[in-house]
């Protein structure tokens, strides 16, 4: 299940909804990404006051659905949820929720990490950070590209 929205989400309620009525679920691994109060660019580490998330709506949906399908093909019977916010967010705000429910915990942990890693390099979102004086587009991290690449070899 995929949702792109400007409003915040309640991770606990979303997870309960994901597993509701499914007695074969042994565990749910989830990841929540949050806005930090310092810049993602490792050179600067400057304070940021807000972040704006832009996206390419139709492609975002297509890419996230593809990621869910890949995870389901890879790990079989899992329930997946991806919620991603767009718009202007302040430090400590929730940006993204990825949750995977499965019969066993290993699958839940691995599939959730897979979805996050691939989302980071395939889903068309862009972050612009606002500092006290300037604002600038966040640059993609080489380490994120490397992490996504690791899943190809397995």
């Amino acid at each position, binding site marked *: 299940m995929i949702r792109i929205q400007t409003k915040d989400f309640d991770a606990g309620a979303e997870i309960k909804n994901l597993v509701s009525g499914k007695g074969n679920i042994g565990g749910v691994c989830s990841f929540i*990404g949050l806005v930090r109060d310092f810049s*993602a660019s490792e050179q600067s580490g400057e304070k940021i006051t807000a972040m704006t*998330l*832009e*996206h*390419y709506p*139709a*492609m975002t949906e*297509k*890419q996230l659905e593809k990621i869910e399908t890949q995870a389901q093909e890879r790990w079989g019977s899992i329930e997946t949820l991806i919620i*991603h916010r767009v718009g202007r967010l302040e430090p400590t705000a929730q*940006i*993204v929720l990825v949750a995977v429910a499965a019969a066993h915990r290993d699958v839940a942990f691995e599939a959730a990490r897979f979805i*996050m890693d691939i*989302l*980071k*390099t*395939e*889903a*068309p*979102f*862009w*972050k*612009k950070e606002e500092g006290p004086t300037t604002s600038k*587009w*966040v*640059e*993609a991290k080489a380490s994120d*590209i490397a992490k996504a690449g690791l899943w190809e070899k397995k």
Partner: protein
Amino acid sequence: MKILYFAWLKEKTSLAEEDLSLPCGVSTVAGLMEYLKNRGGGFADAFADSTLVRVAVNMEHVQTSHPLNNADEVAFFPPVTGG
């Protein structure tokens, strides 16, 4: 052909979206990027370093060698930074 620009490509070109007929002699993404760069101004700036630009055709990530036709939706953007 529909062309979309995102993030700093949208800012530099001052354009979110445009309709364009595939220009004469252009058959790939690389050719289109060269054509757009030659418009000068903000476009020259946006496409100055093509290694910084990522491309999707019909909402799939592609290489610049990807062929184009008039029915395509082409999007230019920086490497993605969601999550």
